């Protein structure tokens, strides 16, 4: 079968969803879920191209866990950041929309990157055009348009996520 690996990934995601949502491991629930998910995977077989490039090996799994840890830490930082900004009477913001470039090709990896950027301190994805992400940043570090600054901005916003996602998806 074509794209068997990618379909298997979709099957895995839907199966985890089904089991978690039913909150039980009774045989009748599992059998019903298996039939439904197989039908859903066959119906949406064309749209699995978003998972292209995903790796299914222990190393990738380990990196996934590492990613979750990095993400959760960034998310809690973002929380503290938001609180300190909102409660500060001076309202220390210097907003602007900056452009960063991503090396990721896989659609799913880009979605995860964009969602992670949105949920981490002070950054918010406004648009994606080809390889460029446009990000509303609440405290822009440098405004001059040169390559050095671009690289610095990219490193600061997306660096840590991108490096790990590259290891999982490419």
């Amino acid at each position, binding site marked *: 079968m074509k794209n068997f690996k990618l379909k298997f990934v979709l099957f895995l995601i*839907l199966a985890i*969803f089904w089991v978690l949502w039913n909150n039980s491991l009774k045989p009748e629930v599992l059998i019903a879920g298996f039939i439904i998910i197989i039908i859903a995977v066959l119906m949406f077989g064309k749209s699995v191209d978003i998972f292209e490039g995903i790796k299914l090996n222990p190393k990738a799994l380990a990196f996934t866990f590492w990613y979750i840890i990095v993400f959760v830490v960034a998310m809690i930082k973002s929380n503290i950041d938001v609180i300190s900004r909102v409660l500060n009477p001076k309202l220390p913001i210097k907003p602007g929309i900056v452009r960063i470039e991503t090396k990721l090709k896989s659609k799913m990896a880009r979605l995860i990157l964009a969602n992670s950027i949105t949920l981490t301190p002070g950054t918010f994805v406004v648009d*994606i055009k080809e390889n460029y992400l446009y990000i509303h940043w609440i405290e822009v570090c440098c405004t001059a348009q040169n390559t050095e600054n671009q690289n610095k901005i990219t490193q600061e916003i997306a660096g840590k996520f991108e490096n790990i996602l590259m290891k999982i998806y490419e």
Partner: protein
Amino acid sequence: MRNSFLIILIAAFAWFMYDIFSEYQTQEQLNKTAAYYNSNEPSEAGAANVVTAIVVTYRGLDTLGEVTVLFLATLIIGFILKNKAEKIIDSKYKTSEILETGAKVLVPGSLILGVYIFINGHLTPGGGFQGGAVIGSAIVLLLLADPNKIVSHKLMNFIESTSGFFYVVIGILGLIIAGGFLDNRIFPLGKLGSLISAGAIPLIYSFIGLKVGAEISGIVNNINETELTDKL
């Protein structure tokens, strides 16, 4: 001027409503029919959700009528909005890539959520109609992410007519094997509260859910295709 008129209207409406509700008293006891359903339902129909048992078994014929009404509505909408789909690619209004990718994960997920709702119709709130509506909203999401996507009319018509056919077949089986039309006791009742219980209720509700889902998806799809041709 217009605002003051609105305020007067709202005040009058509030007074009117207050007049009605001030004399409202809640019923302390169930009436005769409700008491019958409440006490006899577990042994007769075996569904944990009494409302489902009433909708599918005791008042099954009414539900068949409701599904027919929805079918007629779909038919008429399809008749009015009949148009050929044409592909339009306008790069200015292209959907953002994030939504496109997200929808490819979320659409199968919400489809499965809809199926979960109507399969568990006899245990949890919701059932065929609600599950069908969730499936319809999954199709809405699919078309929002990519308005040029062509959803197959043939497949939807097939699902819709097949599930309608089996719905009636189960009803007639009930007439032959058990007590009457749409009686759920053609299968054993099973243990109260598990997934396979309440006789034929999960099966009947699944067919209703599939039928309703296909009908709502058909309406959404028809509207989408008409708008595509209007934009040109």
